């Protein structure tokens, strides 16, 4: 059978983690929840989360599955394809919206730093760059807020380096 000529006409592969954990003790539940949040998963329903499948995301969810099992819960890893493009877009849009919110916070903080002394500003730049890096690692569908946040942070550096003439901010 012929494959569709253009890849994006078909939904992609996703890796799913289905899990159940005892209500108590709550510490391992919270630890797992934090890890999933850090990975930027899409929450499909209670106890079912998803990430676009690649070697790395699959491995990360496998470690979480292991942690769930060690805490007395049950967990399974699934490779799946959304049945329709629309369903995939919905997942992607929810993930992009969550990242956009995080990027907006960075932009706000960068803007607030604009009025500070240079030393405070540069300390803030280091912190915000690290934050951008962390968000970037869980950003599978970059929203336009990403470029705005990056530009806002790098603008703080440009403002310090050449006070009279502003350097253009590099886009990537």
């Amino acid at each position: 059978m012929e494959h569709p000529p253009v890849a994006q006409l078909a939904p992609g592969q996703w890796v799913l983690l289905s899990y159940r954990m005892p209500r108590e003790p709550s510490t391992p539940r919270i630890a797992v929840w934090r890890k999933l949040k850090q990975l930027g998963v899409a929450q499909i329903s209670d106890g079912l989360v998803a990430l676009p499948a690649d070697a790395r995301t699959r491995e990360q969810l496998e470690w979480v599955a292991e942690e769930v099992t060690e805490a007395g819960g049950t967990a399974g890893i699934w490779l799946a394809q959304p049945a329709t493009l629309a369903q995939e877009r919905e997942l992607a849009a929810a993930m992009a919206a969550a990242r956009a919110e995080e990027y907006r916070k960075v932009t706000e903080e960068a803007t607030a730093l604009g009025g500070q002394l240079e030393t405070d500003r540069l300390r803030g730049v280091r912190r915000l760059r690290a934050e951008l890096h962390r968000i970037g690692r869980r950003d599978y569908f970059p929203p336009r807020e990403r470029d705005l946040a990056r530009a806002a942070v790098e603008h703080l550096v440009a403002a310090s380096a050449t006070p009279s003439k502003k350097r253009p901010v590099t886009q990537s």
Partner: protein
Amino acid sequence: MKWATRAGVHIDRAACAWLIRRFIDAQAQFVFVGDPAAVPPDATAFDMRGVDLSHHGDDCSFETILRRYDLTDPVLWRIAEIVHEADLDDQRYDAPEAPGFDVALRGLSMVCTDEQTLAVTGPLFDGLYEYVKRGLLLGREPA
């Protein structure tokens, strides 16, 4: 002795293989498998779901191996912090070297077989060991 791990070696498995060969089993032979069911019966598996020498709680496999084999060398535990951050990036440790190692290993996995990656990363981790050791002895960054 035979040791088995998942194919597609990244930082944690590369570091574990180096650790095993240097500090646990000089004759170590490594097998890379796609599925846990493919681990040869006479091999010790590591960094795979469902085996003991793997992630536990907040520890990555490198840290687990250090604990299981009672390796208390402070140089190895400092390297463990770097491996942990390169692998998990959870900000548990201050390891500015980690993002560099992460990128280097991800890039290697794109152009090397697993055997080649281990051949390249062996000297890299030897060098890291020496660097960290000198740093600890001097109490500051070595030249």
